[in-house]
């Protein structure tokens, strides 16, 4: 055995061992679309905030149960929960923390005022204050958390009431109520995303729904989206993967009419997929579902080398296998390197998802190539018979229209002009939201629940920085006073900020002074009619409430997501999309930064779309240089068909009315890497009897099938690859022989 074969066999054994481990439970599959997106380029606190938001929601499903009345809703919720399969979803029991929050805050209460209270108190005349106090004290029933002589205006009750209004959710008898609806929080049990393609969570919720016919049940939450994506991807992986494998088998069955070539080519493909998967897991620690969908498309590319080998064998049955291979290797390795280069270009954009695809595919192609070179001469024992199908196909090479030089020039100009016109008609779209492929019903449910229970926007928020907590809080207050004004104009529905519960120390002292003045005025006025018991209690000053104290209390849990290690986050409720600029303009406040992930991602997509398009010219120049080194002045014949096919593929995209995205541009890189292969094969074996043509045909047909199948994907990025490559590969296949004169 030659050293290469030996080494590859050892490596293959290691890969297979790894695969056994992976498929017996070691494989971690990431399903969240968001994780395909790049990490922020600058802001660490924004990343931390996003991460926390993601963590807190990754396993929780919320359900709104609405019947004809609050009592009916509670009764329905009870039956709904009882009907849920406990091994999938369990209810998070709600314990009201209200009492302990009040106990925590009471000692600091005189420093706690809302902005509207401050405004009202500082504007009120003494007489107003006395009247307000009288009215507060003589209300027939009221909840009071502080003695009347300390807080005659009941400012603390009012503070709590106003704070509670930041959420419409109210704990009642162990239920969370939103109006007459019950809000159930459910936790996903066990591994939710088994790769069996079965929507377990959706079915579990369906079981619950069946127990409460006629009751409105709306479910939302990240796990439901993840599951929808996982089941969808599962279908797509199977369609694309098995579909293209089946196509290869059929084509090869016709071409070789023998089991051995078939098995060996499938072996090379499976080795490629296995090596790609292993590399991904080793480097990234996991593999993303989208990588698997995309990787399934690799099946249609990785078989090229094996097919090429067998086509040559078939044409030269008498020739020694090693000599034959030596003859094939320059073309094969050149083709492999250009394809790997094309895939590798996907990885230079800072999108983790694309990097996985780049690694998966590059390694996969390399492994398939090595399998052919290292194993095929050893394993391929017998003869490869000529078949009618293969002979007819190879013979068609001679009849295929082949253009003279002037013809080529005319064809290039005409097709180029058509392509240029098509490209000029393209619209572009860099909106990250267009990547979302979730079922509409799920999106609607999510929106409804978010509106009803007031979920913060996961994409837009403020980060507030400062030297220390005191400065951060003070800066946050400067921000929230502006947000109050914008809320009044309808720019946003509300916000969540730590300073709402913990005013800055400076503010607390001011509040306390204001409250003390108010108390003095009121008690003095009432003293004429009342003898106040225990006046000293009223005078005792309270301490300053600190964030640390709050974080260790029951209030800590809801506020946790607002406090980063060295920054505060202010979350926004339903910011109006058309008025984000007004929010962004608040970034001029000291220490305040508006984060708009949607806009960031979209601008990132646009930058990379433009950048990768421009770089494509450099890519073509580089490939031309490599081809020149191998083929000299004929090099252009291998490249021009790919260039024309690319332009026409974009025209097709324009014709279909789809906007140009980064993913179309990246598909053009793949087309460059793969399309050039056909030119290379045909130029390398210019004087053969058409076996290279047969190999190109088989390869192109299977590539076409597998990438064409990607076009059915509901994930628009994968669909973009599918359309571009489907059209592009067909055209390269048709054009290459026309340009590479026999």
């Amino acid at each position, binding site marked *: 055995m030659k050293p290469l074969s030996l080494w590859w066999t050892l490596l293959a054994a290691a890969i297979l061992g790894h695969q056994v481990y992976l498929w017996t439970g070691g494989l971690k599959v990431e399903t969240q679309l968001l994780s395909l997106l790049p990490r922020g380029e600058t802001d660490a606190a924004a990343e931390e905030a996003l991460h926390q938001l993601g963590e807190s929601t990754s396993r929780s499903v919320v359900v709104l149960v609405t019947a004809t009345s*609050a009592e009916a809703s509670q009764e329905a919720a009870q039956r709904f929960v009882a009907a849920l399969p406990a091994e999938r979803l369990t209810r998070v029991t709600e314990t009201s923390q209200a009492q302990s929050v009040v106990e925590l805050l009471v000692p600091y209460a005189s420093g706690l005022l809302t902005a509207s209270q401050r405004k009202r108190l500082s504007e009120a005349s003494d007489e107003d204050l*006395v*009247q*307000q106090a*009288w*009215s507060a*004290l*003589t*209300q*027939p*029933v*009221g*909840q*009071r958390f502080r*003695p*009347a*002589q300390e807080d005659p205006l009941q400012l603390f009750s*009012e503070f709590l*009431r106003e704070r509670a209004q930041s959420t*419409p959710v*109210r704990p*009642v*008898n162990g239920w969370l*109520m939103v*109006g*007459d609806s019950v809000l159930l929080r459910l936790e996903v049990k066990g591994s939710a995303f088994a790769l069996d393609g079965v929507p377990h969570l959706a079915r579990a919720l369906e079981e619950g729904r069946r127990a409460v016919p006629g009751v409105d049940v709306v479910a939302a939450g990240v796990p439901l989206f993840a599951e929808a994506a996982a089941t969808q991807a599962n279908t797509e992986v199977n369609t694309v993967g098995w579909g293209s494998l089946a196509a290869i088998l059929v084509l090869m069955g016709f071409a070789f009419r023998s089991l051995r070539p078939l098995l060996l080519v499938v072996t090379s493909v499976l080795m490629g997929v296995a090596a790609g998967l292993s590399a991904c897991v080793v480097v990234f620690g996991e593999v993303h579902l989208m990588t698997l969908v995309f990787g399934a498309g690799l099946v249609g590319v990785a078989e090229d080398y094996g097919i090429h080998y067998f086509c040559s064998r078939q044409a030269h049955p008498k020739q020694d296998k090693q000599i034959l291979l030596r003859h094939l290797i320059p073309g094969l390795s050149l083709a492999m390197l250009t394809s790997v280069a094309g895939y590798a270009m996907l990885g230079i954009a800072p999108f983790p998802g694309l990097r996985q695809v780049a690694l998966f595919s590059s390694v996969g192609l390399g492994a398939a190539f090595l399998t052919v070179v290292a194993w095929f001469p050893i394993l391929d024992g017998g003869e490869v018979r000529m078949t009618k199908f293969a002979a007819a196909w190879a013979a068609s090479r001679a009849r295929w229209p082949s253009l003279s030089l002037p013809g080529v020039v005319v064809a290039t100009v005409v097709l180029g002009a058509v392509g240029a016109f098509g490209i000029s008609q393209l619209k572009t779209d860099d909106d990250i939201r267009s990547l979302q492929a979730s079922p509409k019903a799920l999106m609607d449910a999510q929106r409804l629940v978010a509106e009803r229970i007031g979920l913060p926007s996961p994409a837009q928020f403020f980060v507030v920085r400062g030297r220390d907590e005191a400065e951060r809080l003070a800066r946050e207050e400067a921000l929230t006073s502006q947000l109050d004004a914008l809320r009044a104009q309808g720019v946003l529905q509300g916000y969540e900020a730590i300073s709402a519960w913990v005013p800055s120390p400076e503010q607390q002292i001011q509040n306390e002074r204001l409250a003390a003045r108010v108390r003095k005025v009121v008690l003095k006025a009432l003293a004429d*009619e*009342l*003898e*106040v*018991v*225990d006046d000293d209690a009223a005078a005792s000053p309270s301490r300053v409430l600190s964030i640390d104290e709050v974080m260790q209390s029951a209030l800590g849990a809801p506020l946790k997501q607002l406090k980063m290690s060295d920054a505060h986050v202010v979350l926004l409720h339903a910011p109006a999309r058309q008025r984000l600029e007004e929010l962004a303009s608040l970034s001029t406040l000291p220490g305040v930064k508006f984060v708009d992930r949607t806009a960031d991602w979209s601008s990132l997509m646009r930058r990379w779309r433009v950048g990768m398009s421009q770089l494509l010219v450099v890519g073509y120049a580089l490939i031309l240089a490599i081809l020149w080194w191998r083929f000299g002045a004929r090099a252009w014949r291998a490249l021009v068909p790919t260039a024309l096919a690319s332009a026409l593929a974009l025209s097709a995209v324009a014709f279909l009315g789809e906007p140009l995205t980064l993913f179309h541009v990246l598909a053009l890189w793949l087309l460059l890497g793969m399309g050039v292969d056909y030119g290379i094969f045909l130029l390398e074996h210019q004087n053969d009897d058409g076996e290279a043509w047969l190999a190109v045909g088989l390869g192109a047909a299977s590539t076409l099938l597998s990438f064409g199948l990607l076009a059915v994907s509901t994930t628009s990025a994968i669909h973009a690859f599918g359309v571009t490559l489907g059209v592009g590969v067909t055209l390269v296949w048709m054009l290459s022989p026309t340009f590479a004169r026999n």
Partner: protein
Amino acid sequence: MMLCAVVLSLNLATAPDLALRIRSALHDAPVQRGTFEQSKQVKGFRKPLKSSGTYVVTRGQGIVWNTLKPFPSELTVEPTAIASKQGTKELFRVDASKEPAVRLITEMLFAALSGDVESLLRHFEATGQIGPEGWSLVLKPASKGLEKVFLHLELQGDSAVRKVHIAEATGDTTDIVLVPGP
């Protein structure tokens, strides 16, 4: 088992019976108006806070509690909201559909002032008596939630509710005397 059921049914029978008899004693007018005198003893103050004014109770609609002395203010209790006004300035407004706790309390207050004994009995345990001169009722909260607000309520009346005594969990007590009139 049988005995248990009998005792249970006996207990159940008394309360609705009382409610029924009080209901039949009450003069059934869709709108009741009059003047009130309220004396509220607030914990921490030695003397009670006294106020007076007019009231309108509309069956199924709500109460308008119009304080005239010592400071004019208006409290409106409706099934959907509770609001307090001073002149034209709204001091506060709470949406009952969003605040179930507030809704329950206002419903009970409304029931007490309008003599809606059936509603009260859904949330309170009642003992009471009824005679030719009139009736009286002592109500204790039946749920934990209401216990946090009310210690007990006392109602007295004849063809209308005449006196309401509210003992709150805060330690405050309120006495309201209602004088039906034009």
